[in-house]
């Protein structure tokens, strides 16, 4: 019976399921559009304090730039970081996965012929699309008012690299947080782990300050600065990297190299996430569901 109702072209089917999941998640997110609109505005508030802080720092020093950043660069950097974070941050993803394990709603994905990770990804894309639709206006107006802080619009190659890095940062953020959420299969409560991750993420992603400022910090290994180490870690690709690309801080071979590192981290985290899901569900079903 199932053969007669199954249609061929499995790949096409996969896309169709994905599209339906996306549509339904979109509708679900739209239920909470008010919450989104408010959340977007709130996001800009911390930036104001950052701008005041850096204005004070520049006023106190006679130098016109700090770590290669002028006062204008710093403001532009923070604003651009907001854009990257809008792609890479995944509010509620890891805690949501952990909750579904704790309250048992993850069972649905063991019983139905549908993949939980694909489902989460579709839901997250929908989440982001709704967010952008709501956030585009406040974002555009802030960037318009602050346009004097920005250097001239970069060339097409840089813009292409910038956009690529944004898409990769979305995937990286997704797989990192999803893997974190899978820890819920092993620990009853992941919120403290998530908190620890957020702290490291906040420091090393460039969310707090540009990673270039770490260039002068020694690690103890001759010729290797803290910034060199951070460039090899995944964190900066969720905030610092895209902004640095737009501002022309990373160029040429260095840019290609950095994009390759970012893409590699996406693959590594996607595989890690898949392994965590496999092991986690095996443990879950051994433990008792």
């Amino acid at each position, binding site marked *: *019976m*199932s053969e007669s*109702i*199954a*249609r061929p072209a499995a790949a096409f*089917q996969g896309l*169709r*399921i994905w599209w*339906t*999941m996306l549509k*339904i998640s979109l*509708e*679900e997110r739209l*239920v909470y559009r008010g919450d989104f609109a408010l959340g977007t505005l709130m996001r800009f508030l911390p930036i104001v304090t950052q701008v005041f802080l850096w204005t004070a720092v520049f006023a106190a020093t006679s130098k016109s730039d700090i770590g290669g950043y002028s006062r204008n660069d710093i403001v532009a950097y923070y604003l651009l970081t907001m854009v990257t974070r809008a792609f890479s941050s995944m509010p509620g993803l890891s805690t949501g996965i952990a909750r579904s394990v704790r309250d*048992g*709603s993850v*069972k*649905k994905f*063991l*019983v*139905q*012929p*549908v993949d939980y990770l694909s489902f989460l990804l579709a839901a997250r894309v929908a989440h982001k699309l709704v967010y952008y639709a709501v956030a585009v206006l406040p974002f555009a107006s802030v960037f318009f008012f602050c346009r004097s802080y920005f250097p001239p619009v970069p060339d097409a190659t840089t813009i292409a690299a910038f956009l690529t890095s944004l898409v990769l940062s979305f995937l990286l953020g997704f797989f990192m947080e999803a893997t974190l959420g899978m820890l819920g299969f092993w620990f009853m409560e992941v919120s403290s782990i998530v908190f620890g991750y957020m702290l490291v993420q906040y420091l090393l992603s460039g969310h707090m300050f540009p990673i270039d400022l770490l260039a002068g910090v020694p690690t103890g290994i001759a010729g290797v600065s803290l910034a060199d180490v951070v460039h090899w870690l995944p964190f900066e690709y969720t905030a610092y990297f895209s902004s640095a690309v737009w501002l022309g801080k990373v160029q040429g071979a260095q840019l290609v190299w950095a994009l390759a590192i970012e893409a590699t981290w996406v693959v590594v985290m996607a595989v890690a996430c898949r392994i965590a899901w496999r092991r986690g569900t*095996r443990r879950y*079903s*051994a*433990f*008792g*569901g």
Partner: protein
Amino acid sequence: MIFPYTLLMHNSDPSVAAAVSDPVICVEGLAKEYRVFDKPEGLAASVRALFHRTSRVVEAVKGVNLTVGRGEFVALLGPNGAGKTTLLKLLSGIVTPSRGTARVLGHVPWERADDFRRRFALVMGQRNQLWWDLPAAESFRLHQEIYRLEPARFERTRDELVDMLGVRRLILQPVRELSLGERMKLELVAALLHEPEVLFLDEPTIGLDVVAQHTIHDFLRGVQSRRQMTVVLTTHYMKDVAALCERVVVITRGDILYDGSLAEIVDRFTTHKIVTLELDEVPDKATIERFGFPCECRGPQVIMRIDRNRIAEVLPEILGSAGIRDVSVEDVPLEEIVAELFRSDAREAAASAGAAS
């Protein structure tokens, strides 16, 4: 052993398994053990538990053998914690067993092959498959894609199921606004859209009012007979069993205590019938004693338990006495029989534990 009939109809006899035609569920020696950690009381003990945790093994299901044929409607009965839900979880592949084998529709459930998952459904609890914030119609659409259903066939099935339950106007309303009974009905629709060959239901009528229970009974009976679907359900309501299941499997402490027809449970495990007399007036003590059976009086109503073998001989005599307006002869209620079954097993367990120590 207090109740020798626990051996009767026990399906460890291979001839019983062979008797089932076209088996869709075959379970042999299926067992599931959990390791549970004891959480000691008090702060000092809690601190000690950080370094040394004491654990013990709990056997939720102990070597169950069960064969269910296509189109059977089976009820799993048992007290709380007997292992019914664990058995359903094993059969639907959520849980991997500690020992034993199982085949459902030819598949090993816990391998979770997509081909298997497209052919069965599990309804467990209330917030299961439907999206909380969206109308059920959207969740149905998603199921259409997940199970790869032909649009025309999907719509026909959906409309048919929705009309059978009388919930057509509810499918466009966000699920969170619906009542418990309405949600349960829509959960059932969602579970049946892909026309599963096997359906597992975990307490489908829990917390529902009588009308909703009836609707669900009629619905399940209708769908099951039309599609020749195999249904296994757990329940605590004997009304479900009486309305739906020809076959009853009683599970206690992870083991099958009885496997047979519902009629046989009544037949084998009751020694008495209940005779209710409606008298003209409230009887005095002497009148009651004259009947010669233990009686319970509720005003002019007298309720007696009479040995089944003697009923034919005794009844005319009773009816001959004056002042009887009405009489009814009934079986002991199913609830009572099953409760006695559960209790007898608990007593037996206590007795064997006492003998062992």
